[in-house]
């Protein structure tokens, strides 16, 4: 059987499974890839035994150059990181353009590049739902949150939600939401990172995980958010350059005709013209809606993303950050249309990328790298491989800063020290926490190395959408919110998210081995987010306590500060 015949057969089997509504694993893999840079371990094709690629010296050299440059950045940043504020938010000195690039870098990951391209290779148009899902959160971030969050907080989103409510209990709930999201995200990252690096560079899994952790610790412990942001900026720019060159070279091969590109792709793919419209991979609108809700509202509740709004000096720059992030991400996802269909045109019939059994080297997640190789040779392949590694380092760095801030700022400084910590102790604790998170990341990465982590990769977005977003939204836009309502709503959001994920197909069937899932969808945010919001509303409107009166009366001043900024006077509500 020729490689192409083998793959055609594979696609047909895949399509039949799809029609039987058994596409959960493909969706999970794709979403995990899109949302969790480096979480390629979540993708079926990089689970289990890893087939390493031949060592690419260009990739190694480019990777070493990147590491040297980013360590230089960390050294520079370490000289400017003297206080906790420097550590958490880069001293608030990042410009809107820089911050927007860094934010885009968090999403415009090499994993998006690999994951969406891989899914397009399998089923064409359907993969783009993941791109639109990751993109659409950003306009709403600008319209609803950017300015108000920036004006109200100082370091984390927990600062915002605790402003008008009873500080300690609501902080504890928000810290719990942050830690759950960061840890789950981190597991997916580390397992994916280990397997991806094993695949790209031929390193043993444990060495790959430990290398990632050591580099991240070097960036974050010494350079804090400043180093993390610049590492992310460098990576984002490199990735944009990489996808632009790849898309350009694909269009050269297609004679700069989009029709020619699509024609060649449809002629190569067994599904023919069906790949140009939805329905090959996904056909259940509810399933699609669950993914889209999880992605959009998950983006709006991710603590390490919200934290980036505080790295800029003013709310105008915060708004610019969200806008520039949209521009870069929009451009990136548009190029993926060319790259996705280009991969079908260029790689599908190319025997160079299939082994003797007709299996694509590295699985479908490596299609983008194969495409780079086909159109740009070793140089572009090496470049894209190095950028992929860079992505993992950058995202894990951001998560580490966010986790460290939750412990040292939200818990230690604000809860245990009542907002009056010793600055030196706080900074030292932040650095210690960073190291502890790094060690935990290595431990979890090795512990989960043989597990199917796709379900873990789904949780952070669902939890962020069901726990963090409702509290944040209500605290900014609804006077009636009370501490009791916020806490109960968050707990219901958290418990319902975890329970529905566990009894859903990805855990109940794929991990626990039961015949049929008790709940049919992998991404329950479509149900758990409204449930959390209704719970918050109900227990707030029915709250007749003295604390509820204070919570409601605090809203007026919070509202003014959220629009006019902290310079409009000290916020009295913060003292309650």
């Amino acid at each position, binding site marked *: 059987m020729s490689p192409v015949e083998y793959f055609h057969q594979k696609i047909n089997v895949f399509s039949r499974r799809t029609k039987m509504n058994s596409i959960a694993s493909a969706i999970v893999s794709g979403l995990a890839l899109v949302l969790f840079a480096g979480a390629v371990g979540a993708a079926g094709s990089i689970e289990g035994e890893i087939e390493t690629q031949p060592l690419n010296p260009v990739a190694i050299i480019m990777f070493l150059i990147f590491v040297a440059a980013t360590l230089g950045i960390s050294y520079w940043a370490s000289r400017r990181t003297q206080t906790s504020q420097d550590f958490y938010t880069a001293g608030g000195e990042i410009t809107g353009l820089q911050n927007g690039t860094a934010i885009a870098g968090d999403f415009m990951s090499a994993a998006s590049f690999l994951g969406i391209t891989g899914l397009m290779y399998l089923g064409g*148009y359907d993969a*783009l*739902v993941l*791109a*639109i899902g990751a*993109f*659409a959160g*950003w*306009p*709403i971030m*600008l*319209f*609803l949150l950017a300015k108000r969050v920036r004006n109200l907080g100082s370091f984390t989103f927990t600062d915002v939600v605790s402003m008008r409510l009873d500080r300690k209990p609501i902080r504890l709930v928000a810290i719990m939401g942050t830690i759950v999201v960061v840890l789950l995200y981190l597991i997916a990252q580390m397992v994916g990172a280990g397997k991806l690096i094993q695949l790209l560079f031929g390193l043993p899994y444990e060495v790959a995980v430990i290398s990632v952790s050591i580099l991240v610790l070097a960036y974050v412990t010494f350079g804090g958010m400043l180093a993390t942001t610049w590492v992310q900026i460098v990576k984002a720019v490199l990735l944009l350059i990489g996808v632009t060159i790849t898309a350009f070279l694909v269009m050269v091969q297609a004679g700069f005709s*989009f*029709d020619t590109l*699509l*024609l060649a792709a*449809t002629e190569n793919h067994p599904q023919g*013209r069906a790949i*140009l*419209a*939805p*329905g090959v991979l*996904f*056909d*259940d*609108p509810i399933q*699609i*809606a669950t993914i*889209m809700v999880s992605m*959009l509202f998950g983006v709006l509740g991710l603590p390490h993303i919200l934290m980036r709004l505080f790295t800029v000096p003013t709310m105008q720059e915060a*708004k610019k950050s*969200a*806008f520039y992030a*949209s*521009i870069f991400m*929009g451009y990136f*996802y*548009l190029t993926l*249309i060319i790259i996705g269909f280009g991969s079908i045109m260029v790689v599908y019939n190319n025997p160079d990328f299939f082994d003797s059994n007709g299996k694509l080297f590295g699985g479908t997640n490596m299609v983008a790298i194969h495409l780079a190789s086909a159109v740009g040779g070793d140089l572009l392949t090496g470049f894209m491989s190095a950028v992929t590694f860079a992505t993992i380092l950058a995202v894990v760095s951001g998560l580490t800063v966010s986790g460290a801030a939750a412990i040292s700022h939200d818990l230690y400084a604000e809860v245990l020290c009542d907002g009056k910590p010793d600055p030196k102790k706080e900074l030292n604790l932040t650095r210690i926490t960073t190291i502890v998170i790094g060690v935990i990341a290595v431990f979890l990465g090795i512990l989960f190395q043989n597990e199917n982590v796709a379900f873990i990769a789904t949780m952070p977005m669902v939890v962020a959408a069901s726990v963090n977003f409702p509290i944040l939204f209500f605290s900014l*836009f609804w006077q009636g919110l009370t501490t009791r309502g916020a806490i109960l709503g968050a707990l219901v959001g958290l418990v319902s998210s975890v329970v529905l994920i566990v009894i859903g197909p990805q855990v109940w069937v794929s991990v626990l081995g039961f015949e049929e899932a008790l709940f049919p969808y992998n991404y329950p945010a479509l149900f758990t987010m409204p449930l959390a919001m209704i719970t918050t509303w109900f227990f707030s409107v029915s709250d007749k306590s003295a604390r509820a009166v204070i919570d409601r009366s605090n809203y*007026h001043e919070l*509202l*003014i500060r959220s*629009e*006019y900024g902290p310079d409009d006077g000290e916020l009295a509500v913060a003292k309650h």
Partner: protein
Amino acid sequence: MDKNKIEAIRLKTRRRLLFTGITLVLYFSYVVLNYTSLGSFIRQPIGDSLITGSLVLFPSLIVIFIALEVLFLFLNSRGDSI
């Protein structure tokens, strides 16, 4: 003074919610048009080309979202301090 501020904030809040609502409607139109029978027309090729309405929908939504952001920023920067 606070009364004027609150009134201005109400206007801003309505604008925020309006833009958010438009974005959400457009966002979920992607599901309705692509994955239900209501949008069967959009899945067809346009004219003699291979490009389907669905393929046009994707970049159009991205461009519209960015245009909405530009409009939002423009309206916010026009004539008021918040």
